Structure formats: C-alpha cells, structure tokens
C-alpha cells in the first residue's frame, strides 16, 4: 500500500483496525520486560533507588519532544503538502504529547526532591519543558475550540511550527546553561556515558513508551475521523430537516 493510499480515511481506518491490536500487544510485552529489567537494575551509587524514577522520567521527556516533532511533520503536511489526514494526525498527537510532558515534569519534581532537595528550580531545561507544556496546551486550545475545524487546524499547524524552535532549546539548554539539571549523557558526541546495566532497561522502557504513544496516536486518529463523520452526518441531518420544513 503506497503512502498516497493513507490519504483515504476509509483505507486508513482499515489499516488502523489491523495494526492497532499488534501495537497494544507489543507495547504491553515490552513494558513487562522493561519493568522487570527496571526492577532488577542496580541502584545508583549516589542517588540510591530513586534512579528508578529515571526509567519513566527520561522516556517521558523524549516522548514529549517526539510528540511535538510528529505534530511538526503533520503541520507541514497540513500547510505545505495539503495531506488530507495531516491535521487529524496533529490534533490526535497533541493531548498525548502533552500528557507525556506532564509526566516528565511531575516525575522530575518527585525525583528532584530526594536528590536535589527541591521539587522545582527555574533552570533552563525545566523552564523550557514547562514552556513546551504551555505550548501544547495552546495548540490543544486551537484545535478544540475553533468553530471552524479547518481554520483551527491550520492555526494550530502554524503555532506548532513556531513552537518547534523550543525543541533544540530543550535539547541544548543543559549544554548552554550549566545550572542544576544534569547534562546530556546518552545522546552526545563521544558516545554514551551510562553503564549498560542502566542503559538497556532505559532503552527498553523508551521502546515500550514509544509503542504506547503510537498505539494511542492511531486510536486517537481513528476517533477523530469518526468524530468528523458524525459532524458531517449531523450537518446533513440539519440540512434535511431545514429543507423538509421549507
């Protein structure tokens, strides 16, 4: 099936129907493996057992940023290539990405309290992640409160692309401003700085979360397509009633 076929909502729905159970199943299996590995992973010599929070906090951060990247590609699809399902993809991804960013901030605070002594600090990375959450909420407001869904989607797409500048800021903020949050230890030049016994469970959990993201995303896209069908049929219903009355 070519990519162009995915532009047809009906074909997309049948694709989702086939793929979705596998995504849920795969996510569940990977999570079970990941949680077992997390449970058995060694404690950090400085932070003790609280490093177990990292196995949620870091994947959630990655997914929060990945969600915005998915939305940015969808925004280009809406504005530049006029792909019919692009705005559906963007609208569906926003609440999911926002939820993972929220998880990142909360678990970060719960991790910070026993290790740094404070729930929150206004350093560059925390602040830019908070700004990311605020931008998510703004985009969600545009998608969901617009009277004309088409206009709302296009406005949201523009805001998505404007907000995309926040992603490199988040990534490099720990390098540019050396304050409290620890610098990059996984994706940096010179290779990873984490021991394999901690790295592998982290990657497994990240994979599980990613599969979960896409399962939720496809399901939300399916729901959005159905919602638009309901709206179309309601419009036909209203028109028919108006004509019958006339």
């Amino acid at each position, binding site marked *: 099936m070519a990519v162009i076929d995915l532009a047809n909502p009906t074909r997309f729905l049948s694709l989702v129907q086939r793929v979705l159970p596998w995504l849920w199943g795969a996510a569940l299996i990977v999570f079970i493996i990941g949680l077992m590995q997390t449970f058995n992973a060694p404690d950090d010599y400085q932070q003790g057992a609280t490093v177990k929070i990292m196995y949620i906090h870091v994947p959630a951060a990655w997914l929060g940023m990945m969600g915005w990247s998915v939305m940015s590609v969808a925004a280009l699809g809406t504005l530049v290539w006029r792909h019919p399902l692009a705005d559906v993809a963007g609208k569906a991804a926003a609440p999911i990405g926002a939820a993972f960013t929220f998880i990142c901030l909360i678990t970060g605070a719960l991790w910070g309290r026993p290790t740094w002594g404070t729930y929150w600090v206004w350093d560059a990375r925390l*602040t830019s992640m908070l700004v990311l959450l605020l931008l998510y909420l703004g985009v969600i407001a545009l998608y969901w409160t617009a009277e004309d869904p088409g206009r709302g989607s296009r406005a949201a797409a523009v*805001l998505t*692309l404007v907000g995309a500048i926040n992603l490199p800021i988040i990534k490099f903020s720990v390098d540019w401003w050396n304050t409290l949050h620890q610098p990059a230890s996984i994706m940096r030049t010179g290779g990873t700085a984490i021991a394999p016994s901690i790295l592998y469970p982290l990657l497994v959990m990240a994979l599980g979360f990613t599969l979960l993201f896409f399962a939720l995303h496809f399901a939300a896209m399916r729901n959005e397509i159905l919602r638009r069908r309901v709206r179309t049929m309601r419009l036909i219903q209203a028109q028919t009633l108006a004509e019958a009355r006339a």
Partner: protein
Amino acid sequence: MTPFTALVLRDMRLAVRVGGGALMGALFFLIVVTMMPFAVGPDLKLLARIGPAILWLGALLATLLALDRLFATDHEDGSLDLLMMGRMPLELAIAGKGVAHWLTTGLPLVMISPVLGLMLNVELKAMGVVALTLIVGTPALTFIGLIGAALSVALRRGGLLLAVLVLPLTIPVLIFGVSAANAGIVGPEPFGPPFTILCALSLMSLVVGPFAAAAALRFGLE
C-alpha cells in the same frame, strides 16, 4: 511617502484616535504597577528589589491587551483582505502594523516607566537600566505578539486565547529582560550577556514575527 510609511502612519492615527490607544496602554500599565504594592505589601526594600520585574510584567500585560484589536478591527471592516491582496508583501504590511503598535503602545510604556519606578522605590541609576532593557525588549513583545494576534483573528476568539498563545512564546524575552535589568542594578553578574541575548531576541522577532503572522493569516483566512 512609501506605502510602508503610509501604513504605519495610518495605524498610528487609528490607534491614537479610536479607543484611546497610546494613553490607554500607558494607563493600564500605571494601574497594574500601582496594584502590585497593594498585593506585595509596602516594604520599600522588597519593592525596590522586585521593581524591575513588576515593570516588565506590567509592560508585557499592557502590550498583550493592545494586541487584541490589532488585526480584528481590520478584519471586521475588510481592510485586512485589501492588505492581503495588495501589492505590498503581507509580511511587510504586518511589520508596519507592528512598528505602529510599538510606537503607540511600547514606546509610551517605556517613557512613563521612570515615573512608575519612583513609585516602586527603584533608584534613578537602576531606572535607567530598566528603561534600557524595556526599550530593547518591548519590540520583541510586540512582534511575538503579532503571531498570536494573527492566529486568533481568524478564529474570532480574542482575549484569553491570544494570551494563552503569546505568553509562552514571550517567556524567554521576560527572562532575559529581567535578568539584564537585575544584573545592571545589583550585579555581580555582568549586564552584557543577558542584554545582548535580549537584543538578539528582539532582532529575531522582527523577522520571525511578521513571517509567522503572515502564514497564520494566509492559512487561517482561506
């Protein structure tokens, strides 16, 4: 007279005649800054310390409120359609409206900020630093705000939606503006780095703002 200048002058005349314009923005700034000591308490040393932050927040909120009507009035009477169809590039037209908005809203804020600084017990030398950061930073607030104004005009929902969209984008300007102001007043951190970043943010917004706002208008008003 170039079309650009004509547009700027037209917007300035409209802003000053209709709805008070420059004076209204300055008045709101005054009221907000006046209310802060009521909320914070009359401790003069505390007020002097947070004075720059209060001035910056007041400037941000006053700019935000004035943005609401920036495109909405033109959209309602059809002149926005004319601008979009005209020969002047839309980005340039929007930049012109941004310049007019800053001249009628941002600049008056900067000019009355020393008076308000007196009320907040900010000393004179410090006030000069704050005014400098404001004059450099308020264009960024206006031009970033253009994006939110363009996004919300097409949706016919002003006010709160505009604030929700614009405030996260202006957070860096606020951070560096207050940081530069405090560095200049209290030290010991140097004034230079946050101030130059503030200048950079303003210059960037002069370009990014009109382009993003033009895209928002074109796509939003199809």
